[in-house]
């Protein structure tokens, strides 16, 4: 955390590194506008048809301010108790995953880094699987335990990867940590597959969790996720200048009086917090953490002072729109949101890879 304090203590007047612009007001405004459009679409469109007027009325009269009695009371209740929290949670999870992805890519200087790089995804899925399998038939636990187990799994996995990476030698080389993460992820995935296959009666529950749990979202999930988002995203943002310096080289960070290793540790910890919170709330949703930061880089350049906030905004917008598609295209049936993000994400990623600028990422 010292790095955070150092970064925060640094006077705001410190000149930006040459050639690395601050976030232009125009782009920030455009990002906010895109989020607004996505949120509007998200609350207007759904399997239950609700008129624009009713949505407007609902927004102006939240149930905790005054109770509804009119003919639209049922629809207003549906909007407030089901659709609004789902849209809010979608935005939060999208922001978390995109921010975490951008942070990992910065720390490891690797365009393929995603929020699940260090085993957070595999750990979370294993944690959730164990919770589902072990709580089967027990009246006490059930679905409330699953997010906790997922979060713990993610934290344990990344912690293990970090310890393993350090024990493997060259502490200055982030590749060691990435490889340790790959090893941990492969191992945990194998354990998860074994547990899942030996408990076939829990199979569907495990799958429906992996494919995304926004379906059951309520305000309680949104509320429990929010603090993690504020802390995680806040810490990553506080390091945006240092990540820019890291992109130039470790010497650049050292010249600012900060240890590159400490920057890496703090940013990885914060990004893992983001990933863990997102996975615990919504399941392992892929591709958001890769395609959103890369889109921002392709359009707006590679400075983390631009990439991080814009990824947060566009990540929120992207996941809200993906979730709107997930609950509308087959309405009233749901399409797993992970299917939507991957279907959009895979072709998109091909375009990113074909682009010549991939070498600069």
């Amino acid at each position, binding site marked *: 955390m010292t790095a955070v304090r150092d970064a925060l203590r640094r006077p705001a007047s410190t000149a930006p590194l040459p050639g690395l612009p601050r976030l232009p007001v125009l782009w920030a405004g455009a990002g906010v506008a895109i989020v607004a459009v996505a949120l509007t679409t998200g609350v207007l469109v759904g399997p239950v048809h609700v008129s624009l007027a009713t949505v407007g009325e609902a927004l102006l009269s939240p149930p905790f301010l005054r109770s509804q009695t009119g003919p639209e009371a049922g629809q207003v209740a*549906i909007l407030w108790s*089901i659709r609004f929290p789902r849209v809010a949670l979608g935005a939060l999870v999208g922001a978390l995953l995109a921010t975490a992805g951008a942070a990992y890519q910065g720390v490891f200087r690797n365009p393929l880094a995603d929020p699940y790089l260090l085993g957070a995804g595999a750990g979370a899925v294993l944690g959730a699987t164990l919770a589902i399998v072990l709580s089967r038939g027990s*009246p006490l636990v*059930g679905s409330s335990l699953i997010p906790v187990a997922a979060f713990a799994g993610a934290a344990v996995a990344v912690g293990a990867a970090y310890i393993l990476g350090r024990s493997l030698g060259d502490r200055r080389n982030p590749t060691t940590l990435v490889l340790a993460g790959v090893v941990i992820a492969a191992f945990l995935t194998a354990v998860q597959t074994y547990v899942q296959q030996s408990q076939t009666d829990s199979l*569907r529950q495990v799958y429906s969790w992996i494919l995304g749990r926004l*379906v059951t979202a*309520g305000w309680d999930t949104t509320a429990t996720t929010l603090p993690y988002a504020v802390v995680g995203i806040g810490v990553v943002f506080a390091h945006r200048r240092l990540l820019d310096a890291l992109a130039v080289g470790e010497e650049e960070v050292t010249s600012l009086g900060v240890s590159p290793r400490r920057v890496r540790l703090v940013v990885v910890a914060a990004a893992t917090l983001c990933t863990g919170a997102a996975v615990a709330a919504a399941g392992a949703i892929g591709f958001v953490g890769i395609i959103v930061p890369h889109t921002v880089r392709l359009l707006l350049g590679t400075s983390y002072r631009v990439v991080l906030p814009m990824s947060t905004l566009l990540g929120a917008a992207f996941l809200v729109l993906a979730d709107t598609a997930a609950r509308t295209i*087959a309405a009233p049936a749901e*399409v797993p949101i992970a299917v939507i993000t991957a279907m959009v994400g895979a072709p998109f990623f091909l375009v990113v890879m074909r682009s010549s600028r991939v070498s600069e990422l």
Partner: protein
Amino acid sequence: MREHLSAASAKLAARMGRTCALALLAGIACQSAPAASPSTGAGAFPLVIHQSGGAGVRLDHQPRRIVSLSPTATEMLFAIGAGKQVVAVDDQSTYPANAPVTKLNGFQPNVEAVAGYTPDLVVAAEDNGGLVAGLTALNVPALLEPAAKNLDDSYAQIRELGAATGHAAEAGSVVAKMRTDVAAVVGSVSKPARRISVYHELDDTYYSATSKTFVGQVYTLLGIQNIADRATGAAPDYPQLSSEFVVSSNPDLIVLADSKCCSQNLQTVAARPGWGAIAAVRGGQVVGVDDDIASHWGPRIVDFMRQIAPHVSQLERQAA
């Protein structure tokens, strides 16, 4: 792996040979002989069972070492009196309690492990992992009894298992009793004054079953409307419904087939965001059923219907 398999195959072939020799000594035809008309007992063998989409399954003698990899088939085999011939059932076969449960897995069957029980008949619901081909190579007859779409499918499967195990007459009476019981339950529910709607829940992420499924067809028989039918366009059998759709459909009856897997009940359902407004929740018409009974297509479907019918009658009285 190949060595293991061929060793098992050789052992099995040797045993099959011995069984065949014994059958010859006992004066029972071991080869040829046309498929006899289905009757009860060992005298009906050898026979050939023709399954749709597959070659005929030849049974040279009455099976004495049956392995069931399907929980529903296990229930059917015991119901028709073939339980004594069953030597092993898969890990999901929970009923009846005296079924010889093993670690065999029906979703990812291991042919070698199945062959280890030296079966003379294997019954499965699905041909996963090259099961049928593997067993055929070992000369073990394999019957597939896939998930039934309706009661007639279920009756046909019971009869087929009856013929295959030498219990055709018992199978016939099980089917006859099921028909009578189903008719009695359906008769106990009067014609509804208005359409009663049901939401059948498979897990706590709102997976449901439409009328095109076996369990869904039961609701059709009871004259109830299934809210999941609105989703058949996207997922004909088991769609995942949106929470807001379930709430706005306002079902009169909620059947929880996830009472065991996911510990769901009236309280947990009422606590879901927005669900407290649903008629079934307000009226307390939320029924927890045994997950297994509701997902199998065997004789116990009658128990399921008996559990649902009183709620339907109650709702109809309220509606009248």
